[in-house]
């Protein structure tokens, strides 16, 4: 066995790992508890949950800490852990009207059906760094009564009116009653497409793109959305948001014995409905259409971009590469992993490329090229260059 001989690389790796571990875990500050992350860096943990595609706040916090705050790296830890778990059951469909809202805004109307509930947001707070001295802020925090944890028991829906406020109707229903939205009812009721078991290719059902976007990288969705707004790909959109919600959603699973749905827990999600103005010549310009976004955790940017892209792909009807872009370029792990793989050794492939550069310079090759178009053989070949870059 020549294992010893292969140790050079391994020793370097171990030293690098040790360096990371030591620098992360030592230092003078107190040990970082996962509860500190879930309580104080909630939005970061939520991103790890969302992009990792696994509702597990403590696990996500642990991953986030292990990854030194790198969201993609933490999502990777969560996702690869997911790969070790068998899929034992699918949850039952859940009516999104059962979402118990912590926040709900309806930009499309001043007084929509149901409340405008601002909830926990910094949308209307000046972006000023808080220079309150730490000891003062800490003392103030200690005096405050502990608020009910967001992950705690269901909201104290004591009264019927409270309950109604927690589960408001949705604008979409009103728009439908007013005959302002196109009918998108699909009588087939197909099973949702499981993107973790079948790769989603262009032409995949809508459920495939929704679940792809639900665990896509937030920045990738925002970028793709913004590109659509600025229009280099000729998709220009006039979007008004119907619903922006954040709240708790029960997860029902069919009881293995009775077959009846049983709530096995709940997750926090952000839900968005985006109302799109239809103006295409082949579209019903007298009505609107609605895109849908839903993701784990509190991540409004992501859900809004998702809802916008959902309706954009629907309207595009395969005419452009938008669907392919949504399905295949928005996953954080895919894009980052492939980008970072460029750091791996490529000297075998590079040697092969150098050899072809030399081959092009040979007298015979130049002679053949000149014979065809009377020029040197040095023009770049755009079709090939792009592919070579990927290697």
């Amino acid at each position: 066995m020549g294992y010893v001989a292969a140790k050079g690389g391994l020793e370097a790796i171990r030293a690098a790992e040790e360096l990371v571990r030591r620098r992360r875990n030592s230092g003078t500050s107190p040990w970082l508890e996962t509860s500190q992350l879930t309580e104080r860096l909630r939005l970061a943990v939520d991103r790890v949950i969302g992009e990792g595609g696994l509702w597990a706040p403590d696990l996500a916090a642990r991953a986030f800490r292990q990854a030194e705050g790198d969201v993609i790296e933490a999502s990777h830890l969560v996702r690869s852990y997911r790969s070790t778990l068998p899929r034992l059951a699918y949850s039952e469909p859940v009516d999104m009207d059962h979402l118990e809202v912590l926040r709900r805004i309806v930009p499309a109307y001043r007084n929509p059906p149901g409340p405008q509930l601002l909830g926990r947001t910094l949308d209307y707070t000046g972006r000023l760094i808080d220079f309150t001295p730490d000891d003062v802020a800490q003392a103030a925090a200690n005096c405050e009564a502990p608020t009910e944890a967001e992950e705690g028991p269901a909201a104290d829906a004591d009264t019927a009116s409270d309950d109604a406020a927690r589960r408001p109707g949705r604008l979409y229903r009103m728009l439908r009653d007013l005959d302002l939205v196109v009918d998108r009812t699909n009588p087939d009721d197909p099973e949702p497409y499981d993107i973790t078991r079948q790769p989603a290719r262009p032409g995949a059902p809508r459920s495939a793109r929704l679940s792809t976007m639900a665990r896509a990288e937030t920045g990738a969705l925002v970028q793709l959305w913004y590109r659509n707004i600025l229009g280099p790909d000729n998709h220009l959109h006039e979007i008004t948001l119907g619903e922006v919600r954040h709240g708790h959603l029960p997860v029902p699973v069919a009881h293995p014995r009775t077959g009846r749905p049983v709530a096995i827990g709940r997750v926090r999600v952000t839900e968005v409905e985006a109302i799109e103005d239809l103006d295409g010549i082949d579209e019903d310009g007298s009505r609107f259409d609605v895109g849908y976004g839903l993701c784990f955790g509190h991540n409004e940017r992501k859900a809004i971009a998702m809802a916008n892209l959902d309706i954009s792909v629907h309207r595009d009807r395969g005419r452009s590469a938008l669907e392919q872009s949504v399905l295949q370029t928005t996953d954080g792990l895919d894009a980052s992993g492939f980008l970072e793989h460029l750091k791996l050794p490529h000297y075998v492939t590079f040697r092969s490329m150098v050899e072809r550069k030399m081959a092009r310079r040979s007298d015979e090759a130049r002679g053949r090229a000149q014979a065809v178009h009377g020029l040197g053989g040095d023009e770049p070949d755009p079709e090939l260059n792009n592919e070579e870059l990927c290697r």
Partner: protein
Amino acid sequence: MTTLADLIDDPAFDREPPPDALSRLHGLVEDHDPYEFGFLDEYSKREVRRAVLTAVAVPGYQVPFGSREMPVARGWGSGGLQITLGIVGTDDVVKVIDQGEDAGVNAANLRRLIQDVTDVEVTTDAREATIVQTRHRVPEEPLGPDQTLVLQVPVPEPLRGIEKDQRELRRMHGEADYARMWVSLYEDYVRNGVITRTTGYPCMIGGRYVMATTPIPRWDIPKLHQARFLSLFGAGREKRIYAVPPHTDVEPLTFDDVPFEVERTEGAFCALCGAGSPASGVESFLIEVPSADHSRWVCSDTDWCSRRRGGEAVTHTDLVEAGMGDEPDDESEDEA
């Protein structure tokens, strides 16, 4: 695999648990390794094996599969790793190379990972391995019928350079419509005087599918033609598995009057084992140790090269001693 429903329907389920059941359960949980044999859960391994079987049945066809996220990033061998972990058994012996080298950091990392989650034997000797996972190379050592080569694939689609739309790509493969591929090779040839495709050269597999030969150099392609071993290609990020079964034609696409050319450099030979020199009588894929005035060359397959010299595998130290490597650097040391 037992499902929850099966368990509950089992008549034994309602029986009183034996008195020591709880403590036994606790014992099991305490000893429980968070990662099981082969890392992936059994359903996922079965999915990989099914895709592999389909791929073997339809040589060169890219079989879509679920592709799990692995403990290595996508682009770092996650597809090859899924195949290796999907097919590996306790009596397998695994070799991992990157660029032909066993000691490279990526190879070392994958080898460690495979060993950690399977506890199988690992080797650097291509003759001892039953599974060889590789990035960018086919070992120089001729592999036999009891060996499986697992290749890590970054870009499985050979036609991507000429067509971006996946629906059209599916049609082209489905109808074996490779006309534009031929046109692109022709244009390349007339424009440049040579076919400038470098690694991952497109090949016709079994006379039916055009396949991307990962980025292995052209040098390695003849080794796949009518090979005695099975080659499995895993693209984790792009979620495709494909295969070249033993005794299958692998024909690089070229024209009758334009011979397929592998990487060769006049006068180059391995400075360590001499391969490539007229006296040695053998050739190997050489990599350049560049220098502006006088480049030198060494075998990329370090295991093969070292065995030719009758010694241990090449190490970084060997290269340094031969005057062809950097001094061991101190970057891994804590800078404090």
